[in-house]
C-alpha cells in the first residue's frame, strides 16, 4: 500500500516534537476527520533554522509531516512556500490514491506556519 519511503518516514519520523521558541505555528485538519498536523517554525533571517511537527493521523499524515520538515529545514521561507502537497507526495515516492487529499496536508500546515510567522513579525 505505502512505498518504502513512506514507511521509513512513518516508522522513523524526522523532527517530531514542539519548539519552545517557535515564532510560527501552523495547524490544519481536525480531529473529526482524523487528521491534525501542527508545524512549529524557528525562522531566523528568513531561513527556517529549525522545524518540528506533531501529527494526529494515519500513516500518510505522519509520513508527509516528517517529509515536509526535512524538505524545508535550512531553506528560506520563500523556497518553503513553493513546496506543494503534491511535491511532498512525490518526494515520498507517491501515496495511495485514497490518501492523496485527506492525509496530504503537510505543505498546507507549513504554509500556515509561515503565514503565522509573517503575521507575528509584521
Amino acid at each position, binding site marked *: 500500500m505505502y512505498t518504502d519511503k513512506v514507511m521509513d518516514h512513518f516508522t522513523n519520523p524526522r523532527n*517530531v516534537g514542539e519548539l519552545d521558541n517557535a515564532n510560527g505555528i501552523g*495547524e490544519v485538519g481536525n480531529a473529526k476527520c*482524523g487528521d491534525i*498536523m501542527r508545524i512549529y517554525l524557528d525562522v531566523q533571517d528568513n531561513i527556517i533554522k529549525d522545524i518540528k511537527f*506533531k501529527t*494526529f*493521523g*494515519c500513516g500518510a499524515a*505522519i509520513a508527509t509531516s516528517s517529509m515536509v520538515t526535512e524538505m524545508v529545514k535550512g531553506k528560506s521561507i520563500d523556497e518553503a512556500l513553493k513546496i506543494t502537497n503534491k511535491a511532498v507526495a512525490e518526494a515520498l515516492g507517491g501515496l495511495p490514491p485514497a490518501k492523496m487529499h*485527506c492525509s496530504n496536508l503537510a505543505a498546507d500546515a507549513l504554509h500556515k506556519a509561515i503565514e503565522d510567522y509573517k503575521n507575528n513579525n509584521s
Partner: protein
Amino acid sequence: MRRVYMDHSATTPVRPEVAQVVTKYFTETFGNASSVHAFGREARKGVETAREQIANLIKAKPEEIFFTSGGTEADNMAIIGTALANKDKGKHIITTQIEHHAVLDTCKYLEKQGFEVTYLPVDAEAMLDMETLKKAIRKDTILITIMHVNNEVGTILPIKEIGAIAKENNILFHVDAVQSFGKLPIDVNQMNIDMLSASGHKIYAPKGIGCLFLRKGTKLSPIMFGGAQERKRRPGTENVPGIVGFGLAAELAGKEMEEENKRLTKLRDKLIDGILEKIPESQLNGHRTQRLPGNVNVSLRYIEGESLLLMLDLKGIAASSGSACTSGSLDPSHVLMAMGICHEIAHGSLRLTLGKINTEEDIDYVLEVLPEIVEKLREMSPLYNSIKLERREECSKCTLTK
C-alpha cells in the same frame, strides 16, 4: 518475527480438516451437482450432507438452508426478497443503526424504491432497548432485520426477545448472524427467526460461500435469475467444494463451541483488562459481558487507528480499526458513532478479534507491544499532553446526538 493474527472477525484461515476436504472436491469429486452421472451424484451427496450439517447447527431443517456466495448475498436476498414479496402488505422495515453495510446499504436502496426504514438507535454499549423496538413497530411493518452480534464491538443483541416481539406482531424476522453463526448457540425455532444469514469464511471455511436459512413457507422474491439450483431460489452452478467445506466447518464449530468459547473468553478478558490497566485514557467499546467471546474493541485516545494498525503490523500483529482511514469513507465507524462515541475517540479505536489460532502467549505479546506503540504515537500527537487540549471543542461538538 512473531506473527499474531487478531482479526478473526474480518476473516479466518481455512482449518486444515476443511482445506483437505475442499481440495478433494476440487480434484476428485469435482462434478456438477446437477449432473445425472456418478461425478454429479457424488457432488450432490456432498452438498446435501453439508445442508444437514448447517441445519443441525441452528436447529433448522436441511431444506430450509439455501447456499449463497457469502453473508452479503444472504443479507441482500433476505431483505430485498422479503420487501419485494411483501410490498402489498406494507412498506416499513425496522433495523438498527449498527448493522453491517450489507444490511444498511440494502435498506438504503429499498428506501429509494419507496420503502420506509426505521434505523433503531442503540445505547453506549451498542445494546438495543426492547421498548424502542416495540414503539417502532407499525401496522405496515413487514420486516425486522437485526444482527445477532455486532461485527465491530462484539455486543450480543437480544435476538430471542426480538424474535418474540416479531412473532407477537406477526412480522418477519431476519437475523444477520454472520458474526455469531458457529460461535454462539442459535435455535431458529426458540428464537422465532424466519431468516438468518451466515458466512463460511468467518468460521474457518473458505471465502465465497454462505447461506440463508429461510423458514419453510416464507415467501421471498429472488434477486438473481438463471438455473433451477437450490430449489429455484439461487441460480448458478453450486459451489460444491465451498459448500462441503462450510458444512464441515459448521459441524466442527458446533462441537467445539462450548470449550472454545470458555478459552476465548478467558483470553479476551485478559486482553481487555491488560489494555485498560496498562494504557491510560483507554476505554472498552461495546458491552462488557454481553459480548462475543473473541472480541476486544478499545479506544486509545489522542491517536489515530490506521497509524496504530501500521505500527502493530510492523510488530507482526494483525488487527483492525474503526478509523475513517481504514473504512474507505471519510467518517469513522458508523457503529461507534451510533454508540455516541465522539469522532476523535472513534478514530482511535482498535479491534482485536481472537480465534482458534491465538494463544495466551499472543495476548502477552500484544500487551507487551501495544503500550509502547501507543506511547510512541501519542508523543507525536498534538492532542496529547498539550496545553491547548482544554481549548479544543471538537469532542463535545462532534459527538453525534442520536
